[in-house]
């Protein structure tokens, strides 16, 4: 395959990836226009778009749409960055030290199968319904996902590359820094994408807890007043944030882990 073939291939991918959601939208608009769906249950895309424009111009519940978006993004990014940093750190330590792995095994693996949403009542009891509960809930789920991925990544380094490093004079730290860590990066990057999806899910759920800011709040509030178009608009904004962050992480991953799949 030559360079222009590759470019054509890539163009076709982007084209299909763009056309597929547009086709779904068209089908949806068609169904709504034919009156096959109730506007309360499934309003037409045009009405949702109008609600979005309304929110963008006039805000929602006395607060600008961008304030809602910013409130959600602030929660999720603080929790995500902190959870990922600690999770990767602990996962790498577990992968490198059997002692630390033994210490963390039971607590981590007992916590992991519990759906984070099942912890909401406890978190409310411990931390109230404010910011702390929301952020900690996201933080915890990101941490657990990243710990598993980082630990699995440590095992990805080949025996030969570890031996090669040792036989070129690398000490324990240098083996870790120059071989184990880079070998773990592909798995860590994949984990970061999975964790972002989960973080956004937990974000919306945690915002259902209460408060008067955030996209989750907006969706819950709109639905209790049967303003379905606003619910859809809110959901769409979250979806777009998810899509954008995932594409961004995938793009960053291809650049950081440029050697992956090319051996």
């Amino acid at each position, binding site marked *: 395959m030559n360079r222009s073939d590759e470019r054509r291939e890539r163009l076709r991918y982007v084209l299909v990836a763009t056309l597929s959601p547009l086709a779904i939208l068209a089908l949806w608009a068609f169904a709504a226009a034919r009156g096959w769906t109730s506007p309360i249950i499934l309003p037409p895309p045009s009405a949702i778009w109008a609600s979005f424009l309304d929110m963008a111009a006039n805000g929602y519940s006395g607060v600008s749409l961008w304030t809602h978006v910013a409130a959600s993004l602030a929660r999720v990014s603080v929790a995500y960055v902190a959870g990922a940093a600690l999770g990767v750190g602990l996962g790498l330590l577990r992968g490198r030290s059997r002692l630390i792995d033994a210490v963390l095994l039971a607590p981590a693996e007992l916590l992991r199968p519990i759906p984070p949403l099942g912890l909401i009542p406890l978190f409310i009891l411990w931390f109230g319904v404010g910011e702390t509960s929301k952020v900690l809930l996201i933080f915890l789920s990101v941490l657990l996902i990243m710990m598993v991925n980082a630990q699995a990544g440590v095992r990805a380094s*080949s025996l*030969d*590359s570890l*031996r*090669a*490093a*040792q*036989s*070129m*004079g*690398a*000490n324990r730290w*240098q083996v870790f820094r*120059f*071989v184990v860590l*880079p070998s773990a*990066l592909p798995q860590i990057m994949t984990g970061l994408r999975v964790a972002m999806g989960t973080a956004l899910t937990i974000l919306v759920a945690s915002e259902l807890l209460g408060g008067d800011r955030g996209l989750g709040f907006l969706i819950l509030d709109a639905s209790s007043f049967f303003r379905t178009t606003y619910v859809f608009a809110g959901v769409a904004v979250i979806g777009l944030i998810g899509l954008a962050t995932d594409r961004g992480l995938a793009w960053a991953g291809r650049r950081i882990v*440029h*050697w992956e799949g*090319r*051996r």
Partner: protein
Amino acid sequence: MTAAARPLPSHEPPDALLQAKADGAPPVLKFEKVGFSYDGRTIMRDVSFAVAPGDILALLGPSGCGKTTILNMVAGFLRPTAGVAVVDGREITGPGPDRGVVFQAAALFDWMTVAENIAFSLRCAGARKGERRAVAEEMAALVGLTGFEDAYPYQLSGGMRQRVGLARVLAAKPKVMLMDEPFSALDVQTRESLQEEVLRIRDRTGCTILFVTHAIDEAAFLGDRIFLLNDLKAGAYDTFDVDLPTPRASPDNRLHPSFLRLRETIYRRMRH
């Protein structure tokens, strides 16, 4: 020296072999009654030999004969369970840059450029960036990789990857270079040109080489001395001295009567 087989008694290698060379240079690598067993199974017993500085010792034998075990003990990846393995007068206790390894699958660091791979040992030793770059360029030139310093390993062919593997070992200026079937996955042309490259590098650097292979041709073309490992569990191996004209890297040596004779001798010996 002749290309005749000289089967040795199993347990008492003659002094001549332990002294390695007639001119009396002390051996750079020496095994004294080395044994290795794992899980109660004996892999080898009472293996003794010595390698003189600048020599290429080829360890020849089928898979599972224990040749890689010997290499791994020299590298320090495995500890002998009996006897002592000595490099440059010091017992081997672990891996170190004085014994670099060229692996069969290159085992390059895909996240580093060619230059970074080559200068890895210097980076571990704390050398500055400028020095690392200079050595990387020098070694790249030595193995014929000039112009590829900033490429990544996955952008290179198999033969070029092995050249990087060679260069990064040479950059550490090892006492012994250990090569574990490094060319067995390459096509014939690439393999032969790399074999010649190894001989040229040895002539230029004076590096001692332990070369593990299962190919008779490779052992006979490259080695100064060949050990045919028959039965290491009993400490038995045959020694062959290679007698070919210098420069050894000349491809004509592949058709030299002495080469052909040695190849036949070893072949018959392997088949008994």
